[in-house]
């Protein structure tokens, strides 16, 4: 094939986000030649960088006990494995809104206790920051801020140590079945790579790749999400605040920029669409759409709950595509999507959910003999060979 015989791999992972990289690292136990194909000039640049400013402990999902429970089970493990990438020096606060909240303070507390997530009444000094006629109760919890830049470095080091090839600025056009149940990966330059096992870990581009390859689409929903970066007054610098549970906001330390991120349930999603109803290329849309920032709306609403935010300054807004499994509109869950042999044999599609649920997908991969030849490693920690 066009003189690219050396472009044969045992495993090809399409998409160098957090999930793609971790899956490559896990498969390194069983395979020698692994490549990651990344569209951008660096790893973890998109959703892994933007959407994951915190390590969840499950507090966020009082309406989906499975997601909450998995988060809470995986939390200590994640915190240990990625201890160099998290920042635990912030005080994390959950405030329960009085009006229009889907949980009450009592229910929230009970929920946290049922998933064994530590929760405490916040000290008076923190309670006083809130407008108490809009906030029913304030709790402090154990949750950490994730430093996406440090995480990127950590991943890079481990990929290098494991000898995994990363091809940057290469965009995969489509995949097709090749001889011997191998999968051919065709780049938009016309180059062709062949892998025994190919993983589609492209998150918002999953359906784009499936569509170009003539494979049925998955029921995914996309949202164009805006995250405002703000400079908060000193009193709030060491706090991460989430107002639950409804059309409220969260403002969180964003360590890579030494700023706070501000997202709002009502204003962060600008537009949304379902691929099955109306397909579009998410990244292309993000690049071409005329987007007007809604940071003013976010700030104005947040100021009602947290008057100190009147002194906050909007620095800039970051936009990214957020992809969700379409069936989780109602219960708010964030499952990982795993479709083995989807459309083409040995071609699997994986969509990451929450960052700390990575262990679930590793566990799911372990169930398959093909991915787990080395039985010893399956028992031990999978990071360090």
């Amino acid at each position, binding site marked *: 094939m066009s003189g690219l015989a050396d472009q044969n791999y045992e495993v090809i992972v399409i998409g160098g986000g957090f999930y793609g990289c971790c899956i490559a690292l896990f498969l390194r136990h069983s395979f020698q030649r692994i490549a990651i194909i990344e569209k951008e000039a660096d790893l973890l640049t998109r959703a892994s960088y933007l959407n994951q400013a915190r390590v969840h402990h499950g507090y966020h999902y009082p309406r989906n006990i499975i997601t909450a429970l998995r988060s809470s089970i995986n939390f200590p493990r994640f915190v240990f494995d990625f201890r160099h990438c998290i920042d635990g020096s912030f005080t994390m606060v959950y405030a329960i809104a009085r*009006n*229009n909240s889907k949980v009450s303070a009592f229910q929230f507390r009970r929920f946290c206790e049922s998933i064994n997530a530590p929760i405490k009444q916040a000290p008076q000094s923190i309670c006083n920051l809130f*407008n108490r*006629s*809009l906030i029913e109760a304030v709790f402090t919890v154990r949750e950490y801020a994730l430093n996406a830049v440090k995480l990127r470095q950590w991943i890079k080091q481990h990929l290098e140590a494991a000898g995994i090839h990363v091809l940057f600025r290469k965009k995969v056009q489509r995949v097709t079945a090749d001889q011997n149940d191998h999968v051919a990966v065709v780049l938009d330059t016309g180059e062709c790579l062949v892998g025994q096992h190919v993983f589609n870990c492209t998150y918002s581009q999953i359906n784009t790749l499936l569509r170009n390859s003539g494979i049925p689409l998955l029921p995914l929903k996309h949202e164009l999400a805006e995250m405002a970066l703000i400079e908060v007054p000193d009193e709030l610098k060491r706090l991460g605040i989430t107002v639950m549970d*409804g*059309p409220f906001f969260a403002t969180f330390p964003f360590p890579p920029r030494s700023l706070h991120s501000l997202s709002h349930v*009502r204003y962060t*999603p*600008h*537009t*949304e*669409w379902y691929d099955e109803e*109306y397909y*579009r*290329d998410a990244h*292309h*849309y993000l690049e*071409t*759409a*005329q987007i007007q920032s809604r940071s*003013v*709306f976010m700030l*104005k*609403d947040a100021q*009602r709950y947290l008057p100190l935010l009147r002194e906050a300054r909007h620095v800039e807004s970051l936009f990214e595509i957020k992809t969700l499994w379409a069936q989780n509109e109602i219960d708010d869950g964030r499952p990982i999507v795993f479709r083995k042999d989807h459309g083409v044999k040995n071609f699997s599609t994986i969509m990451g959910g929450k960052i700390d649920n990575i262990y679930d997908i590793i566990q799911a991969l372990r169930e398959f003999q093909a991915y787990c030849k080395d039985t010893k490693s399956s028992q031990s920690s999978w990071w360090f060979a």
Partner: protein
Amino acid sequence: MKNSSILVSVSVVVSNDNEIVAEFVEQTSAVLSEKYEYYELLLVDNGSTDGSDLTVQALQQRIPNVRLIGLSRPYDKQTALAAALDHSIGDYVVIMEMDHDPPDMIPTLITKAISGYDVVIGEQIGDESGFFLDKWLTSLFCRLSSKILGYPIELRPSYFRVISRQVVNAITRIRNKSRYLKYLNVQVGFRHTYVPYQRIHRRRARHERNRLFRSIFYAIGMITANSAIPLRLAALVGLFASFLNLLYFGYIFIVTLVNERLVEGWLTSSVMNTTMFFFVFLILTVLSEYIAHILEETRDQPLYFIKYETSSTTSIYTDEKLNVV
């Protein structure tokens, strides 16, 4: 030039207004989007059953910055207004009634508010409706309210007004169950002014049954909810009656001493009974009114419940040209 230094919220209560809601939303958004960079139109669906909510949700696909909050059942107007104020995020909140308040007036009122007023009230000119009795009672109430409540309250049925964030914050902190926006508005203080405006008629005026009685109940409710003066008056009357009773007792005592022939007591005792019962029942009437309020206040439950909330998802389906795939 669009004003980009403030966020304007327009809050409206929707109760079975399907025939006019689309027109209202379109006109208001047109005015707002022309004048302001940042605005929202907040509709509080007060338990409509005529499909108003569906109409608004359809509009949300097309018109940006439209929010809809559905209350779980029809509440009284004051509670719905409280929900509207609670959920508005703007620096200035405009309260309107769809039936007759003209969206074109919004910028005028806002400009007035920016010039240094916390509350700008739209004062309707040429109110041709209402009979003589109606008008007379209205002006009577206005005078009465300034005596009893301490503030003259406009009883004319207009809510069109702009309220600054500061005043909204003050009003939303008051969680009384019996609440009257017009009263709360003046009660919290701040600077007020009036701007005259001409009403429009989006539809034939709804025939309000028993409007006179409703107004009277409204007036009585507002006074008893916010003032203890009637209770004090009742107490004074009671005191006066018991004082009379005391005198009467003295009279009986003296008569008993002076006069030995006491046969005809029927008249006096029945006079006394009727008088005392009159006062007792008068006092009971007033007391029961207050007890009703105490009952409402002590039932510690939220003012209202919200059933759902939706916002504009200005649709991706209309910007095909950007997406050449």
